[in-house]
């Protein structure tokens, strides 16, 4: 088993002190260690943004892809080599602005991936502009008179897109974050985790969330109940931010894309010979 320490790298960490990303990094290392994964069997795919630096800080295979494309990249990796544990890390800008077009399709495909969104409600690395989850009216460099657009509700949206595992965690609660990530990694299929990850520099929400979050597990939530999951997903909006549930909203078992492509089960593509016999196929053109 690889230790948490061994999962770190010597790369100087350049996140701001106090950043919520540290907890995500820490929790993920714990989970990888706890699950006994071999480092070379894990691939992390990271988006562009502060969150995306997480790859440099992990002694794991990684691909720092272009902005918004974590999902298709991760999907390609997993389909090519299903032995790999593939985990995507995206930002809220990455995942919900430029990259949101891939999300419903990842949900439909149900490829066995984990997708962690560092939802700090700002574009961190580009100095704090509004993202699709920024609260209405918030002033940022790109919205100095307040954002004029309603934020999206990622949990509700992903539920409605048909995802098989939908969860939320909070950087301020490391233990619970670990639990949620572990359940996500254990889920067979597409596991979506929105992490409330305060951006200490541009939008410090630690206090806000600390006062409001509660754990679904503690509240008797049944994650197999879609309607209840949807009700809880909208709780923050409906209660005007009184109560914000964290934990697993919904989980269901459904065949993955590979389950539905029987000719790809068995030997992984990466292990098949680098030649396809086309003699028979060519016959048909004679």
């Amino acid at each position, binding site marked *: 088993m690889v230790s948490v320490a061994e999962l770190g*790298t010597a*790369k100087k960490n350049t996140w701001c002190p106090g950043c919520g990303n540290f907890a995500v990094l820490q929790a993920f290392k714990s989970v990888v260690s706890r699950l006994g994964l*071999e*480092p*070379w*069997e894990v*691939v992390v*795919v990271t988006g*562009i943004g502060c969150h995306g*630096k997480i*790859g*440099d800080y992990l*002694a*794991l*295979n*990684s*691909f*720092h*892809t*272009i902005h918004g*494309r974590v*999902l*298709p*990249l*991760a*999907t*390609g*990796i*997993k*389909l*090519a*080599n299903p*032995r*790999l544990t593939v985990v995507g890390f995206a930002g809220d800008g990455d995942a919900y602005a430029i990259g949101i*077009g*891939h999300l*419903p*399709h990842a949900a439909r495909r149900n490829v066995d991936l984990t997708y962690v969104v560092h939802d700090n409600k700002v574009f961190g690395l580009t100095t704090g502009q509004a993202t699709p989850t920024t609260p209405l009216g918030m002033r940022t460099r790109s919205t100095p008179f307040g954002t004029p657009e309603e934020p999206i509700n990622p949990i509700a949206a992903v539920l409605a897109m048909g995802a098989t595992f939908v969860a939320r965690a909070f950087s301020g609660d490391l233990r619970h974050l670990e639990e949620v990530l572990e359940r996500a990694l254990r889920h067979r299929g597409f596991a979506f985790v929105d992490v409330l990850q305060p951006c200490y520099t541009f939008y410090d929400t630690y206090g806000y969330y600390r006062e409001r979050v509660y754990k679904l597990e503690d509240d008797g939530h049944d994650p197999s109940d879609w309607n209840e999951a949807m009700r809880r997903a909208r709780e923050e909006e409906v209660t005007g931010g009184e109560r914000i549930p964290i934990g697993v909203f919904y989980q269901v078992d459904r065949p993955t894309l590979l389950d539905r*492509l029987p*000719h*790809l089960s068995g030997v992984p*593509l*990466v292990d*098949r*010979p*680098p*030649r*396809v*016999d*086309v*003699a*028979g*196929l*060519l016959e*048909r*053109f*004679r």
Partner: protein
Amino acid sequence: MGMDLNVLIGGEAGDGVRQAGYLLGKAFVRGGLTVVSVFDYPSLIRGGRNLHLVRVSDSEVSAPRRGVDALVALNGDILGSFGGEVRPGGPVVFDSDASAGAEPPGRAAAYPIPATSWAREAGARRVVRNSAALGALLGALGYDLDLLLSVMGDEFPPEVYRVNAALARRGYELAARNPLPEGMRVEPVGGRGDRVLITGNEACALGALAGGMRFYAAYPMTPASPILHYLAGVQREAGIGVVQTESEIAAVVMATGAAYAGVRAATGTSGGGFSLMVEGLGQAGATETPLVIFLVQRPGPSTGLPTYTSQGDLLFAITASQGEFPRAVLAPADPEEAFYLSAEAFNIAERFQIPVIVITDKHLAESYFTVRAPDPSRVEVDRGELISGEWRGPGEYLRYALTESGISPRALPGTRGAIVKQNSSEHNERGWAEENPDTARAMTEKRLRKLLGVREALRGRSLEVVGDPDPEVTLVGWGSTRGAVLEAAARLRERGRRVRFVRFVVLWPFPSEEAQRALSNAGEIYSVENNATGQLARLLRMETGIGVDGTVLRYDGRPITHEDVLEGMGEAI
């Protein structure tokens, strides 16, 4: 000159015009003849005008030409519009039930066939009319009906075969009562060796498979969709993954993911989709991921003419995406070359860890060409410096190790003991993001150095040079115009002109030295291109300083013929 017949088959979309031309062509090929057939169709699903121009010859033709020698008209619109173009005495087969108000031209040999009624009588779908018409055409031409029936037997399930064969026979018998005069007949010839009738798209797909492609991700786009359809159809037999993605962006990125994981992976699209892939192309370049993109050109700008042909994306393909990184751009001229180059594309991609673009166009991609059957055993697979299984050092594995060749040994994720980090940001040898100027310079140079290797690897194969060693005139070109140019060159040679043809198979890295050699002492140089601005001519000047003396450009969406070339050069046709 021997036999050279242009058969135009026309009907509405939905009438099976494409299929009819294909069956006819294949019947000719099985008789030892050579066929090239161009399917001309607008962007709609039913109605409109679909035209399939099947050229058949007893010599080696590989381009369409002008003129109509025989017409098969499935409706009155076609009969009325194209009947007059048929050369005097040429056969005009038409569905007499569907041609109300139109008449075959007087000087033609008319073969009215009540094909709609026959189809109805046979209790079959209307589309079987085709078979009656094809049978009639062969009856008129005196060609061997069994060759058509053998093709139908291979293409159709038994019940479908039965009704089509019956109608073909009926048409044949009716027309054979009034066969064309001796000189207008078409007869099988023998001993042409192992040949196939195949489109460029099919050849690209097969070449990719022969080259070991195991993953294809694409979003449908005319005229590249047939690659997706073909691969989707054979995915089980071939044991490959085929994903129709949500967009071209997803396609290029998903293929990149698969390639990073160690599978030969590709995507394919046309202009608009390629535009969307541009960022992903750069990612492959920066991260040094082997990726193959099939770019099947159609006329732009923008949505343009989705179902027509063009060579308008050359400079775009070469310069697409921000920054500077190595890539290769390969342009096959016909399906045979398409097969081998598509396979080779994966070798170049993996050996040099670069994106490779195989650029074709609608004409090559969707027309049927008669070519020697590709030989899969001639395909070699060279995956370059690949590490899998276990990393044994020395030292820590470095994904972007700085080497003289610019190529860093490539471990696959999953290699025990190796951590494989790829990074679209500028990075150090480990793959960690790094921004200092020395690293940036070193990595830029490392990447660009790989182009030297690519050039070396492709040396001797980058150009096709044929014709006169001491020419008065040299035609330069690339891609699917080859057949037309060769035919024009042959005409000129018949007229005693000394002509050379220099065709660029590799467009990037531009084979500058070879081009210098092939174009020194070239006489007058003409560039022949299916675009409006002479992109090859401009590229040639950019990379060698050699200017052309003239251009022959066609940019109305239709393929170039030898007549276009001659006309464009100011020569008699």
